[in-house]
């Protein structure tokens, strides 16, 4: 049976038969891979614990007829802090859910893999709502759906320097609207400032500026934009466990 090896992040698992699981991975070189992990639900399983969602692993796959088989798994990094904190864990779940939606089976998308690994590492080291919102915004940019934050999407006038008042965000047109064109969802100047910093590559600055309320606003807005882009609801954002 031919084998191949790849680095991957576990996106989700499904129960299969008595004690097996189907595991969905986002791999570095083979796109999204679905594979069967045998016997992993038994407590004596050699690698069951490594195949939980968000685990970053080095996997040896055996090519199967329909689904590949997981032969060996080693952990690459640990996400202990993210796993032992309810807020961080639920943010991580949302990250893997969105990558599962965007990834295509067997289609190489190394950027998705790299962005997910980076975001999970940040999640492990940083306790902020902004980590999730920033991940969504960066994914949207890589998908060619970067929200327009500098010009009004209706009249194309420059928004310019942001003040403390509120602006508008139009989901349909994918960007901010000036106060004269005021159509869409209200968004604060602070939240827009954070979004500009994130998309301008100034993530550390954004995290330092983090005010809690504005971060939540950014994550809420980024979730709406992402749901609009994928045309699917993000289940993890609606389970009400916060």
């Amino acid at each position: 049976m031919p084998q191949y090896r790849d680095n991957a992040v576990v996106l989700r698992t499904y129960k299969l038969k008595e004690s097996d699981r189907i595991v969905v991975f986002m791999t570095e070189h083979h796109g999204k891979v679905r594979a069967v992990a045998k016997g992993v639900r038994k407590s004596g399983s050699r690698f069951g614990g490594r195949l939980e969602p968000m685990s970053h692993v080095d996997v040896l796959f055996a090519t199967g007829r329909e689904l590949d088989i997981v032969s060996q798994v080693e952990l690459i990094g640990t996400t202990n802090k993210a796993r032992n904190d309810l807020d961080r864990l639920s943010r991580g779940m949302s990250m893997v859910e969105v990558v599962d939606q965007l990834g295509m089976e067997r289609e190489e998308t190394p950027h998705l893999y790299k962005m997910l690994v980076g975001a999970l590492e940040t999640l492990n080291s940083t306790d902020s709502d902004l980590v999730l919102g920033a991940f969504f915004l960066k994914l949207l940019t890589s998908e060619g759906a970067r929200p327009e934050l500098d010009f009004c999407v209706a009249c194309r006038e420059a928004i310019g320097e942001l003040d403390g008042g509120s602006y508008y965000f139009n989901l349909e047109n994918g960007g901010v609207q000036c106060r004269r064109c005021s159509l869409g969802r209200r968004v604060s100047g602070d939240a827009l400032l954070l979004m500009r910093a994130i998309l301008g590559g100034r993530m550390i600055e954004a995290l330092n500026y983090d005010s809690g309320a504005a971060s939540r606003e950014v994550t809420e807005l980024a979730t709406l934009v992402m749901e609009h882009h994928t045309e699917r609801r993000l289940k993890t954002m609606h389970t009400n466990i916060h």
Partner: protein
Amino acid sequence: MASPYSPPMQALIDELGRMPGIGPKSAQRIAFHLLKVPEEDARRLAQSILNAKAKVRFCEMCFNISDEPQCSVCSDERRDRTMICVVEESRDVVALEKTGVYKGLYHVLLGAINPLEGIGVDQLKIRELMMRINDAEPAIQEVILSTNPNTEGDVTAMYLQRLLAPFEIKVTKLASGLPVGGDLEYADELTLGRAIEGRREVGA
């Protein structure tokens, strides 16, 4: 293509095929087996399915399966009524009862929070657990979180831990570590890590 089976046989195969873990081939095999068994055996099987459906219900206290309004654990006066062990499913109660170690009460959530499947707090018996703890007489002293040691179980346990924090109740979680009979070198890092964190002094 028309089914090669007569309609009653096809209906039987279809119904069996809807059971968990039974594919079309297994359904066909079981259907042929049932045709061969004496009519009395088939009737007994059908009757036991109907009986179970009619009589088995959820215990009104803990949501364990029971044929009475209260299950055998909740109605047993000898059980310690100050402890509640929270589990995901009724079969977890069976597994814990087999150990013979635990003498308190249970609460079955009928599932676990699974954000990726969209299963949240409202689909589980969490509100009922909180009401039970609020109204308990004698007061609950300890809640043991015994959800499965996987992501869904951990999310559920952490959520309950947060809900229970304002109460003056000892909240514990099942120990997680090495399986009896296993080799240390084959243990995965997460399990071994938890085993080290949860180590305890011996001979004390």
